[in-house]
């Protein structure tokens, strides 16, 4: 089964795994603490939020679209969740319904973007950019002028870091999302349909795949996952903030690209994008541990991104290749 899962992703991700391993070796050399159990747990903890997002983002990118709305959806859902979970501000406790409502907010925002994209034929870039602001606006309005809401439920606030079998709960959640993402991608008609759309939308349409519904649904799932990430991030922080998702977009999209998921659609997969997330999180963590001047962090990040994509693309150069 696992073998089957892996084989369906375009080409083996061996190169990527090697890159991750190489990076780990270099960083362990620079600071022996890098390879400590605590740090590996730390890396898993830090990758869990972007991992959840990257699954949704990959579904969307595989069909050739893009989802920029991550930050807004996370802000809206995170705020919605914390305000109806035991907190210092409202004192409301909706229990499970808090999750349902927050995830619902994310799915609704995803649907909103999807409908604008598919029904109004506004490019996904713009539809999701607009949704980013709309979500952020909802988060800001929920935040209002009141107190900073913090979780009062100790168990809930500790849950993300608590270890189960030596692995933080956050990562168990993210891992489950990745597995579900892999199953959707490889074992459902929906997932295969997204690949078909990414490969050639016109054919997908004419061969009767309900392209519109698939697209809207992919964006809705991405919205739901961003919402889940927003909840997890809020839980990790212990307090609500409408900016909870800031900078996530610029981790997740490069991660997908480094993983070899083509922005034009049809190529790549959840597993590869996840490896891309690991690569970037390890890079960030390693730079801190190695004591690189923070001013240079963005630059090193940019350089690695360029090197990674150029290395992948270099052998495929050809006089007539079109790369956009």
């Amino acid at each position, binding site marked *: 089964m696992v073998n089957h899962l892996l084989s369906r992703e375009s080409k083996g991700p061996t190169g990527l795994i090697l890159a991750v391993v190489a990076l780990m070796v270099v960083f362990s050399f620079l600071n022996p603490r890098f390879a400590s159990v605590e740090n590996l747990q730390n890396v898993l903890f830090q990758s869990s939020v972007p991992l959840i997002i990257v699954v949704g983002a990959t579904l969307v990118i595989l069909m050739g679209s893009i989802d920029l709305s991550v930050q807004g959806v996370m802000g809206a859902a995170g705020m919605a969740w914390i305000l109806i979970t035991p907190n210092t501000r409202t004192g409301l406790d909706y229990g499970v319904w808090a999750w349902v409502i927050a995830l619902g907010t994310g799915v609704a925002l995803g649907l909103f973007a999807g409908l604008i994209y598919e029904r109004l034929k506004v490019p996904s870039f713009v539809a999701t950019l607009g949704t980013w602001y709309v979500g952020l606006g909802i988060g800001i309005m929920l935040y209002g002028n009141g107190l900073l809401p913090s979780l009062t439920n100790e168990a809930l606030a500790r849950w993300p870091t608590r270890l189960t079998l030596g692995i933080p709960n956050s990562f168990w959640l993210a891992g489950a999302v990745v597995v579900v993402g892999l199953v959707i991608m490889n074992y459902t008609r929906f997932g295969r349909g997204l690949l078909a759309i990414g490969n050639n939308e016109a054919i997908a349409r004419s061969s009767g795949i309900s392209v519109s519904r698939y697209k809207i649904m992919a964006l809705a799932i991405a919205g739901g996952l961003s919402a889940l990430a927003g909840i997890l991030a809020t839980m990790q922080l212990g307090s609500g903030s409408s900016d909870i998702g800031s900078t996530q977009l610029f981790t997740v999209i490069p991660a997908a690209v480094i993983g070899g998921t083509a922005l034009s659609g049809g190529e790549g997969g959840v597993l590869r994008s996840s490896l891309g997330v690991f690569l970037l999180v390890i890079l960030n963590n390693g730079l801190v541990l190695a004591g690189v001047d923070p001013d240079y962090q963005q630059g090193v990040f*940019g350089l690695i991104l360029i090197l990674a994509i150029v290395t992948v693309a270099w052998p495929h150069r050809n006089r007539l290749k079109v790369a956009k």
Partner: protein
Amino acid sequence: MMNKIQTISSSQPSFGGVIPPGGLTRHRVVAAWHALAPVLVFVSMLLIVGILNPNYLKPLGISIVTASAAPILFVALGQAMVLNIGSIDLSNAAISMVGAILVALWLPGMGVMGIVAVLAVTVAIGILNGLLVAVTQVPSFALTLGTLGLLQTAALVTSDSQTIYISENRELIAALYSTSLLFAPLTFWIGVFVALVYWGLLSLTRLGLGMTAIGKNERAATLSAVPTLPIKVITYAISGLSGGLAGLAIVAQAGSASASGLGSNLLLPGIAAALVGGTSISGGQTNPINVVFGALTVAFVPIAIQAMGFGAEAQSLVYGLFIITVVALTTSRVRGAVIK
């Protein structure tokens, strides 16, 4: 790039193409709408706000809108040129940041030569972007995201994480902003002039024809002996130049520059202005003159939101809805085309 309207595909199913009868008139109507929509959107927005508060139609209102449009306009023009060849330049706002910092650093010592030197540097950054994109053939979205990171570091390092305030020779550049012509600052008019030059470049030169051909069908352009590599490099150089000009406009306005100051948030407004100006994100379609109206519209949105009295908390929400609505009104829709 993403968001591509895929009019060309090696394997689109069809039964042979014949012009759909009635397509001719439709083609003209669509073309006319494309030419006019950005102007109409801006004018109608101006009118609505003007009815609510006539002060916005007075000289001060005009000078405010045009002043805040100027930096967006330069970045948007550069972006539109890159979008036109079917690529994207996520680094061009960061180029303008670096440009602004360099202007602030060099102007006091070098005077006008400093400005020339800064533009040379931003063009060089653009050329480097173009070479990387064209030679390595990687998606420009990812590549320029990488150069964006490098430029952010460059901005922090060159400015030593300081706000650099120009004390000497400030008048050399401040005049660009403080001088106004028909109520708009000179920086805006320079932007309009640059738009006209870019328009001329696109519609009246072989270079421009090549750019548009690359944007619409790069393979066919290559096989038609269009020099794709130099054209891409030139296009990114233009984006770099536009970024540099935006940097000048920023410094002219602010008299100072810093890595996270004015201009650090120009990327998304720049893209939005290009799109609202009718530029297709899939390439092959832009009109720099309409991008002027795109920039005006995008600069006007926050002003309009404020003018219409939406609460501070609602601004993001309204801004998001507005961008979607405007692009929905101006976006090019080809029947049956794939929108990405």
